[in-house]
């Protein structure tokens, strides 16, 4: 399905944030805002003032206030995390993930996919924290049958936002050689490409989703043929956006690749530790229009 062509009418401009509205050509447009983080690694507090890269940056409390503002601006907002929520600060060592999921629920995350460090406190503790916080994990290629997590995660979720159906599925990295079998137990890993093909087709056609998003903890790209977001994009179709994690890749702007059928797939990842939030706005309309591409640095 060769359904869209990507056009660069690029210009460099300095705009205020309000200038973003200039992208909205038609008042009948409906905008879906996707906010995303990855590899936050229990960075509850902002980085300390003596941090070599990001002094005083990040932290859950700042992110919460940002989310609140952005949800007020556009109620049709979905917030996802691409895994490795856990591990990295004493908050995890002391509380085993309870605080992270508690806060993420409160600050409005819709769901996360499962990163390899989500297994670090063991499945039993993970289960307790998911249940206590009623937190949504989406994992399409881990099979938790006969484990503590059986029935607690979803293969995919469909969100209806202002009449737009957004289908979301999640992919996790191969656990063997990365996570101790003592931690993941009977969890089975299935090939992400096969799973992605099946579920994205199902979401697009069977379920009629207008937008299909993959939240992935596969990693952005590898030098060998290990499956990654960029490889996944090329080998599949029907995915509009891949929100990545694992490799802590900080992209200045999303990477746009052609999928198996030559259609564009957007891939994005925003580093680690929650210093950055990625924000992608999909403007939907009944009319076919294009707008300028701006690159703005404030």
């Amino acid at each position, binding site marked *: 399905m*060769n*359904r*869209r062509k*990507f*056009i660069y*009418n690029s210009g460099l401009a300095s705009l205020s*944030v*309000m200038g*973003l509205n200039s*992208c909205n*050509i*038609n008042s009948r447009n409906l905008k879906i805002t996707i906010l995303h983080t990855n590899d936050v*690694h*229990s960075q*509850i507090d*902002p980085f300390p003032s003596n941090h*070599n890269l990001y002094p005083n*940056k990040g*932290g*859950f*409390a*700042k*992110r919460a206030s*940002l989310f*609140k*503002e952005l949800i007020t*601006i556009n109620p049709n907002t979905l917030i996802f995390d691409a895994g490795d929520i856990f*591990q*990295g*600060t*004493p*908050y995890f060592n*002391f509380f085993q993930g309870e605080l992270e999921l508690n*806060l993420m629920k*409160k600050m409005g995350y819709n769901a996360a996919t499962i990163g390899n460090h989500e297994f*670090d406190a063991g499945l039993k503790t993970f289960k307790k924290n998911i249940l206590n916080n009623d937190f949504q994990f989406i994992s399409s290629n881990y099979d938790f049958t006969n484990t503590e997590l059986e029935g607690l995660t979803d293969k995919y979720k469909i969100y209806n936002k202002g009449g737009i159906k957004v289908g979301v599925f999640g992919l996790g990295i191969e656990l063997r050689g*990365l*996570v*101790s*079998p003592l931690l993941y137990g009977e969890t089975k890993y299935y090939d992400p490409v096969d799973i992605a093909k099946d579920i994205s087709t199902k979401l697009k056609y069977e379920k009629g989703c*207008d937008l299909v998003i993959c939240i992935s903890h596969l990693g952005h790209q590898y030098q060998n043929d290990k499956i990654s977001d960029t490889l996944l994009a090329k080998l599949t179709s029907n995915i509009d956006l891949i929100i990545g994690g694992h490799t802590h890749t900080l992209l*200045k*702007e999303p990477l746009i690749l052609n999928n198996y059928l030559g259609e564009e797939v957007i891939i*994005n990842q925003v580093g680690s530790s929650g*210093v950055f*939030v*990625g*924000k*992608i706005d999909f403007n*939907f*309309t*009944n009319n*076919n*229009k*294009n707008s*300028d*591409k*701006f690159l*703005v640095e*404030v």
Partner: protein
Amino acid sequence: MKKFFKIIFVCCSFYIIGCSDLNIDSISYSRIELTGQESRMISDVISIYKDSIDANLDNVIGFSDRLYTKGDFSYERFNSTLGNLIADVIFIQSDSVFKYHENKNIDFVIQNHGGIRASLPKGEVKLTDAYKILPFENEIVIVEMDGEHLPEIVSFLKNETTPHPFSGLTINGNEVLVQNSLIIPTNKYYIATNDYLLTGGDNMFFFNKNTKVYRIGYSLRDAFIDYTKSNLYLSSKIDNRFIRNE
């Protein structure tokens, strides 16, 4: 939208040759750096958790003469200041425990680059730094292995893109020494690693060729904390333990 947040945004445009009622007309992107105000509700929740750990974590346990990182290696001198420090500390601490319980000595230490998660700042070393540098709840394990399997380990280390910290071993091109001696294939060697690597973590599957595993019930972080408390001053450098010249 308040101006607290630094924003880089990109508006991208798409032509759509549509087949459904709704089409994606344009897509815009911003990368927002979190520098803004804090949510009171969230920071209140955090403070409850924070207070109960801060008192402990703020304790100074030693001092560091400079910033040490795991990233200051080069391709040829394939070792880092922080990696060497951690590996040497684990050698010293686990060797004394192993000696006490089993009356044996460690031959060398292998840890994983990915197990070190933060840099060691210059100045006061606090308990919180130990948690940041070694956050994982991994324990030191002593693996008994025949010398015949050591070349496999060496070749693995050589082919990695990041230097896994080790101590007690020197690799200089094709010359490999353990405790300054050539490897004897029929000898037993005692390698201090961690339980993550023992189970094939970071693809170090060679540890399953062990003939015995000794669990000493000593975490990597506790070893680091104990060493720092008893030695007070931490120092390290890049050295010639791993020279790659091919």
